[in-house]
């Protein structure tokens, strides 16, 4: 395997492949940073051009745009609180908080290093452990998907800043938003009120643009000064790079979660990054740092989302089941070039597949180098006056929302969710709950109905499978564990207190 990888590396270091990797990385970074576009859109647009290319060139172009675009989404997430790519939504919470403290460059450094580790680990998992990982992934069926969705919602609610109750309310709002439209399994239109435009589900991208971009620029309009509240930039890119190494456990947890989510088709990097964020917050000694610029709040999500998109190639290449939208496009590109995913892909075309793996590794290095060269200048946005920045962001955000599907309805959604997000944030309702509800809601419902079809209507199916039962038990522990533990400790304390009174006999 090592000799094949070295041969692949020597192959992609030829100028024709290297130039494709560099150009695609540059395109991916820019497109990923623009809200409403995203790497998958760029891949879809450039996909027809790959028909006339050599297979390895075409695959490298698409994969490199995908990887670089995923990192690019964190740039706008950190600088202007707008996730350029949905997977960067979790990065806004602490990345933008760092930008407000004038430490945008440090935040970009954290994100860059974390993305590097995540991408590297995802590709390493793809190269070294594709077969055993995919066997584990095959054990996940609809009941396990449903249980995972419930776990995700519980984690977010419990880790919500301020109030678990408000977090749960927002989770329910997110789920309710996900019910609008025609259900994927049942094919029944719900809450459309006769409007054909509502029969398609409400897209995640316009909702994210509204909740993060529009809501934030409304807050910017309320206050004077700049995003960087001190009006000046402090910190350097290298500070962020060094700081990342101080959180090895965060990196490991992000890698594990990202790879785990990536190998299971249909969950996605958005879920991975949000879950890791809430997990890091839950495990932190001082959770109040989160939302105020905690480095783990940037490192965790960025490691996981980059690991996830590389790991999503595992079921794609080994089983022909795409792990994500970007992986789906790559799968089509593979089949268009006459290759078949599966075990034969690894043995039948080793020079192609190992050249592809080597190209992915080179692509990761390419986005790190390009980012190091140009990212520090982007941070200047955070010291521009809000009176100038807010209208520019408004234009970019709403045009980006329109660009998502070139339908004005997306702009309306962005405005409505922007106003709701602005009011909700003002009154202490955490928007992360809404995002998770929307992301996980459709997965939960689809898996729920599929599970009932499998069990002929019996709800016991969720408790009859060991994996789904374990996950649901974990949900129960997460929700009720802290309260039960509190009452248990109180009861033990009272018992000890009563016991101490009995041993102390009163003096005659």
């Amino acid at each position, binding site marked *: 395997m090592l000799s094949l990888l070295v041969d692949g590396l020597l192959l992609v270091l030829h100028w024709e492949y290297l130039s494709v990797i560099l150009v695609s990385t540059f395109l991916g970074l820019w497109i990923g940073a623009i809200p409403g576009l995203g790497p998958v859109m760029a891949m879809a647009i450039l996909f027809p051009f790959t028909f006339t290319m050599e297979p390895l060139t075409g695959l490298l172009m698409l994969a490199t745009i995908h990887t670089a675009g995923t990192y690019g989404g964190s740039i706008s997430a950190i600088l202007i609180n707008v996730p350029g790519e949905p997977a960067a939504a979790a990065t806004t919470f602490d990345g933008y908080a760092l930008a407000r403290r004038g430490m945008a460059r440090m935040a970009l450094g954290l994100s860059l290093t974390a993305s590097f580790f995540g991408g590297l680990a995802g590709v390493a998992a793809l190269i070294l452990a594709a077969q055993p990982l995919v066997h584990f992934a095959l054990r996940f069926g609809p009941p396990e998907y449903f249980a995972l969705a419930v776990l995700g919602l519980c984690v977010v609610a419990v880790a919500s800043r301020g109030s678990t109750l408000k977090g749960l309310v927002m989770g329910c709002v997110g789920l309710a938003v996900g019910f609008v439209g025609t259900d994927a399994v049942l094919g029944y239109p719900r809450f459309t009120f006769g409007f054909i435009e509502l029969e398609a589900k409400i897209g995640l991208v316009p909702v994210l643009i509204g909740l993060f971009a529009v809501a934030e620029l409304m807050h910017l309009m*309320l206050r004077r000064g700049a995003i960087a509240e001190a009006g000046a930039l402090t910190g350097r890119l290298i500070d962020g790079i060094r700081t990342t190494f101080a959180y090895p456990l965060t990196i490991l947890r992000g890698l594990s979660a990202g790879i785990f989510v990536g190998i299971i088709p249909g969950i996605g990097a958005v879920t991975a990054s949000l879950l890791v964020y809430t997990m890091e917050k839950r495990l932190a000694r001082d959770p109040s740092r989160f939302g105020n610029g905690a480095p783990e709040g940037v490192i965790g999500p960025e490691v996981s989302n980059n690991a996830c998109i590389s790991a999503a190639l595992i079921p794609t290449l080994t089983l022909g089941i795409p792990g994500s939208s970007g992986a789906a496009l790559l799968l089509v590109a593979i089949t268009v070039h006459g290759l078949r995913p599966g075990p034969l892909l690894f043995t039948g075309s080793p020079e192609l597949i190992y050249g592809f793996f080597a190209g992915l590794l080179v692509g990761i290095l390419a986005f790190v180098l390009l980012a190091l060269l140009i990212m520090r200048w982007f941070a200047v946005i955070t010291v521009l006056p809000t009176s*100038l920045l807010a209208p520019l962001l408004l234009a970019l955000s709403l045009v980006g929302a329109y660009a998502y599907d070139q339908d004005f309805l997306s702009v309306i959604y962005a405005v409505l969710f922007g106003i709701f997000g602005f009011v909700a944030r003002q009154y202490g309702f955490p928007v992360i709950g809404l995002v998770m509800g929307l992301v996980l809601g459709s997965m939960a419902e689809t898996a729920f109905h599929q599970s009932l079809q499998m069990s002929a209507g019996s709800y016991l199916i969720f408790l009859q499978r060991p994996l789904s039962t374990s996950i649901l038990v974990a949900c129960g522990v997460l929700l009720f564990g802290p309260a039960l533990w509190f009452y248990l400790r109180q009861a033990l304390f009272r018992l000890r207190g009563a016991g101490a009174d009995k041993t102390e006999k009163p003096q005659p």
Partner: protein
Amino acid sequence: MPAGSDQGRPGGDQILAGLIALLFIGMVLVASGYPSEPRLLPSIIGVAGAILAGAVALGFGREGEAAGTAMPRTPRLALALFAPPLYAVSLWLLGHWVANLMAIPVIALLLGYRRLVVLVPVTLALTVAIGVIFPLLHIRLPTGRLLRLLF
């Protein structure tokens, strides 16, 4: 300043929670007209959401930071609330070029920005950049319904 009230008036978060609770109740009522399978999860979530939002509306879960802060009553609040929908309407009616060339400087001036020597070129640069990059990515920009009717 916390959104909660010491004089017994409901806080802003309680009012918002109350409105959300009403929405969930409406959701359950609408879902009751659907067949059993499509109705199931919306009904469960609707009831759960109404109970949780109702609890917040009655004052639970509002300790400390969770109560949020009161909405500042300044003219900027009106601008913040109305600028996005008005810009969206202008985008729909007038299209990308006219809407952006108008809206960006108007909003900036209303927010107090006065350096026209920066504002004008920045407005032009962003409008042109969007107008050039998006079509290159095969993304059609809005052309404006009103302009299409007039010309």
